[in-house]
């Protein structure tokens, strides 16, 4: 009876959850230095991004393309972009930050990556909520047309980052330079992800080009959910979903085969 897979899963679940909790506690204790200022920093950086884009908008005299307030519009683009970058970096960093822990046969790179991503997702949602509430408390604006759709778009945007981070972390076990080169791939995303414009206002040539960017769709779906006065004509959930699935599947396969062939039974050396 105990060999029945669902029973084995149920038996392993508490151990698995304890390990996920341990990784999350370690992340909180180490990345945010375990004090209030450290936690605050996680909120201040996206706020600084929002302010920077706000200043750029003012300097360029740019009008927002949606019938909403400027704070909500900038938050809808900047925060998912920043948080998806956070997710990429967190997963990439976990490979080196946990290299000693990963020598335990009880800890796998997928467990670490999954736990780090779960923390990143919760953090990013808190950051988004905090900035929306800040906008409301300072300027009195708050938009949330369809919370489920907004959450779905936000989830797709941040998960696209997490999936890309996982793929790069896996590939960098073969080509270590890739983890250092990842910021180069990420930099253009700021300009091609609809952070400070919408898909509807793009010229067709650019739109055809940007339509392959999963983050672009995540942000557009988020805006569909946030703003009652906006409906993106080009948002397609299948693009980020496909991207996420391809990245995770490829990363997983690479992870399993990254040393000399498939792992030998009972031999944990592949996990190094």
């Amino acid at each position, binding site marked *: 009876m105990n060999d029945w897979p669902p029973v084995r899963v149920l038996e392993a679940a508490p151990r698995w959850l304890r390990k996920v909790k341990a990784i999350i506690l370690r992340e909180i*204790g180490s990345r945010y230095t375990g004090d209030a200022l450290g936690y605050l920093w996680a909120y201040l950086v996206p706020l600084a991004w929002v302010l920077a884009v706000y200043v750029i908008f003012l300097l360029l005299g740019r009008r927002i393309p949606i019938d909403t307030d400027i704070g909500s519009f900038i938050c809808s683009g900047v925060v998912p972009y920043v948080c998806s970058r956070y997710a990429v970096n967190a997963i990439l960093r976990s490979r080196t930050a946990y290299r000693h822990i990963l*020598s335990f*046969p009880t800890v796998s790179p997928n467990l670490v990556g999954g736990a780090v991503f779960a923390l990143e997702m919760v953090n990013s949602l808190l950051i988004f909520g905090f900035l929306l509430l800040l906008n409301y408390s300072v300027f009195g604006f708050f938009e949330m047309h369809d919370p489920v759709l907004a959450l779905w778009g936000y989830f797709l945007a941040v998960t696209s980052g997490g999936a890309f981070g996982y793929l790069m972390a896996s590939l960098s076990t073969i080509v270590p330079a890739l983890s250092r080169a990842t910021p180069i791939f990420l930099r253009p995303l700021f300009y091609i992800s609809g952070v400070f414009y919408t898909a509807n206002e793009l010229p067709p040539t650019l739109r055809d080009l940007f339509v392959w960017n999963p983050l672009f769709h995540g942000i557009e779906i988020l805006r569909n959910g946030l703003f009652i006065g906006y409906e993106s004509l080009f948002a397609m959930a299948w693009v980020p979903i496909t991207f996420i699935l391809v990245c995770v599947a490829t990363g997983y396969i690479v992870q399993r085969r990254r040393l000399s062939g498939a792992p030998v039974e009972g031999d944990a*050396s592949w996990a190094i």
Partner: protein
Amino acid sequence: MIGFEQCTKHYVLDDEERVILREATLLFEPWDRICILAPPGVGKTTIAHLLAGFTRPTEGNVHRSGRISWPLGFTGALHPSMTGERNVEIIADLAEAPRNRVSAYVAEFSELGEDYHRKVETYSSSMRARLGFALSMAIPADTYVADGNIGTGAPSFRTRCEVALEQKLNEGAGLFFLTHSPRLAERFGRRFAVLQGGKFVLTADAEEAKGIFETQLVEQDSLQQLVEGFSSE
């Protein structure tokens, strides 16, 4: 079997290539007590890290199965901004070891007292080393990896570490010990080898290993004197 199979490890340091292992093979059972005698500066720590799973060989395979410990006294995974206690609890959970028992053992063994509940960044190097060694002993392992010495700090604490390891070995655990001390090798080992030209040379007993190792040291000294002689001229 665990160990090294046709393993090569080299890296470049200051534009100079350093070869630690050259197609070296040494396979043993997890419960074996292997001591490798090697002179200082030949890469004992790198070899220990290879078996511990911290780094990968340039070529060949490192076979690891079962629970292989971190090098005894290793402190690299302790995060300075967390307390000793929190670090230990997290590592125990990740190793699937009983958290409370591990934490109590470490607190008692390390003799850190109240400092155990303080951030590791406030520790002196000796306190950190004691915490690291206590943690090594608290996390169950099938094979312990040791690099250089057994134990750390004051002689009384070092003795305590040696006794604790001996107890683990008597309970059936294995040991992979890289050292330049024939005395320690003889005390803890049951099988012996010498690291020579990047290869493991297995010997019949401790005496033979000691003989080869001492010859190696003499040759190294002669070479050193020759190099110094040339450079002074």
